[in-house]
């Protein structure tokens, strides 16, 4: 067992777990931030996508001890103050989720995309989002929501 202090959504959390415990289990099971989901455990589905210093990362394959001092983690709970990130609003407008299980990860991946590329083409969206699986088949609406959010952000910036 070892003690780790993590900066998640601008709050410090201390947790005592075995070395090598995945960041996903730390976030979900120890700290109760359960918006981040487990889907495959081998970085094939993207359900557990979080940001580490803004970079989209699969929490399932990241050991808690692989984090560097001072790195900032953002989860779906910290994407916006009141669930009002342009992507979250666009997601509702497009009625994107069905079962919704993969959508925390989809949103976190999409948020990183718009951060890096505020007006992505449809092909750029598909390429950037390709690592995030959705079994309900909501891909069409996710693409639409990302395009809506991109247009909205550009119109208001």
């Amino acid at each position: 067992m070892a003690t780790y202090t993590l900066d998640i959504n601008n709050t410090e959390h201390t947790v005592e777990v075995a070395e090598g415990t995945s960041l996903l289990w730390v976030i979900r099971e120890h700290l109760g931030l359960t918006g981040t989901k487990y889907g495959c455990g081998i970085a094939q589905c993207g359900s557990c996508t979080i940001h580490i210093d803004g970079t989209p990362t699969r929490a399932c394959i990241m050991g808690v001890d692989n984090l560097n001092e001072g790195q900032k983690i953002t989860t779906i709970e910290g994407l916006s103050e009141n669930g009002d990130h342009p992507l979250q609003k666009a997601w509702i407008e497009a009625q994107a989720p069905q079962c919704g299980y993969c959508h925390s990860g989809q949103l976190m991946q999409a948020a990183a995309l718009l951060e890096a590329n505020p007006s992505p083409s449809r092909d750029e969206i598909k390429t950037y989002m390709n690592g995030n699986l959705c079994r309900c088949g909501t891909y069409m609406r996710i693409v639409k929501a990302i395009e809506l959010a991109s247009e909205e952000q550009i119109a208001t910036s």
Partner: protein
Amino acid sequence: MNTTTPSLDRRQFLKTTSGVALFIGVSGMLPLAISCKNEKDIQLQLEKHPLTAWVQLSEDGQITIYNPAAEMGQGSMTSLPVLFAEEMDADWSKVKVAFSPQDVAIYGTEGWRPGTRILMSAGSRVTKSYYKVMRNAGAQARYVLLASAAKHWQVPMAELRTDQGFVINTQDDQRISYGELIPFLEMPETLPDFTPEQLKKPKDFRLIGKDIPRKEIPVKVDGSAQFAGDLRLPDMVYGVLERGNLHGAKPTLTNESDILAVEGVLKIVPFDYAIGIIASSLEQALAAKKILKINWSDSEATGFNSQEIFSEYEKIASENKKGKTITEIGNVQQALKSAARTYTADFKNDYVYHAQMEPLNSVVQVTEDLQSAEVWVGSQQGGDGKLGVPEALGIPPENVKINLQYLGGGFGRRSMTDFVVECVALAKEMTPRPVKLIWTREDDLTYGAYRPLSLQRLSASTDTQGNITSLSHCVVADNGNLATSGIRNAYYDIPNQFAESRGTSRGIRLKHWRAVGHGPNKFAIEALLDDIALDQGIDPVELRRKLMGKSPRALATLEKAAEMANWDIPSAAGRAKGVAFLERSGTLGTGICEISVNRDTGKIKVHNFWSAIDAGVIVQPDNVKAQMEGGILMGMSSVLKERITMVDGRIQQSNYHDYQLLRFEDIPESIETEMIASTEHPQGVGESGTPLVACAIANAFLKLTGKRLRHLPFTPDRVLAVLNS
């Protein structure tokens, strides 16, 4: 209200009518929810002022409507409350939705056998089976409000009307909101059941048929939607099971002491087919699972090689001994004898896996006396909604409380209860501590319950004018019951039809998979129709148009889809369109897709998918479109990529790296859905899109290349083999 049916007396109601059984009526007092055993629950209920078993009013005007069905993305959290609110005449902006208690007597619908009731969200049945129930219950809630207002104002009920959350006196225009009526609420002596004729006419719908945003979407974009795996209870421990990759094999654990020595491990729980481990944390349970040393016995599946089994299935199909007859119309043999032409073809499909994004899980707490249990689970329900827990513990159903959570996908997999009963067995060992059971993705895949592999042998005959005179269909499959749905052709005017199922078993776990047998069966039927059309030089839409002469509703979907797809205008060079029609869960649908093929890689690209459906009254149009989009994409995924294989009975895939699903890069440019306007009873939509895909793609491929794909999935290697044949 003067048109209601004669009412049963109150005593009978308590026994028979849903929605009222909850209450003991004491004149002048609020009805009391007697089904609640827990005092805290009763208190909470009272604060919310139950109006009937289905709805609660708060003094601020908020209305909480119960959803009795599972929410797995199909939209029940909105569609069923919409039906209720429509008849209650509620202000939708004030409606909140909660899962109902899992009490089949009150919240169930008619079962398969007369006189039985079930709670079940499967087979696309939710909207269809609750359409009358929810509307009747909504009308009853409105009736209670009207009766209470009538008594309060001392006027006849007939002089009152309602308008979106208000009761209005038609004589003096006095208004009172539903919330303001709370102090005056009274259960009427009798509560009528409403016939469909007494309910709103479709032309008067304010909510049904409108694009209403789904109630649960906001919690699905901020991470707060609660799935069973998200639960964290005080003192909770974690369970995992190792089930091996040979279905039916029995385990012998050979390193028990090593496992018990792993930090945090609390207990080893042996099952017939698995070894269970309970530990203080999930990572500890998983660490112990990783070092399990287990000797597995042989099983019925030992020696089974899924990719070599088709030759055996072909032999079974060729035997003279008939299987189980599914349908027999006219005389196929006679039609074949007098035929001008005959056509015969075999079609095949491999096993596919549900692959819902949330691997199975549940949380169970059993009391120390082993006499009651509480369960948190995302389930498609089934039976009495108690999920096998009473049987597992040998206790009465009323001692089991099921708390339904959101489902991270169902697709049929969550209509099984294995993942609940397993957790009960673990929790029984840890009483009174709650146990969270987690299936890893590998567990979920290798101990899956697949859509069966099957062989379809079809033959058809035509007369001298090219009319199809007979169709004969033999399906050979592991588990006949799961392989026969969709084998009938009620909407095609083919005078002689015969269908049979020839079962075999190799001990592989199987289950309903979205649209069940429709995927493989409709693929075979619709592909054979295009084989005939090609041979006879008839346009595939024209061929179906002729077959639908006696089915105007089916024909309307064909004409609409053909119009949407510009069927008569050929595709650009290198592309082609294919058509398919089918009925699933009562919904009639025609799908047309446009594809191209990379002849070097064998990869099929779907460019566009158009569909037109007749699903009766459409409760939520945008949600129906979403279901069709999702169903078609899941269909594309299964048709182009997915297969589970066994070697010596052992499942060869384990996770998404070797069981590939459709990704963003593969989505079409457009998926368009049109709904035929209808006032008929709603039908099921969730499974309608998926089975259209195989046949539409295969028929487009035939048009494009002149070659026939006959074995699902159409993976690039198979496509290349067909192109080079």
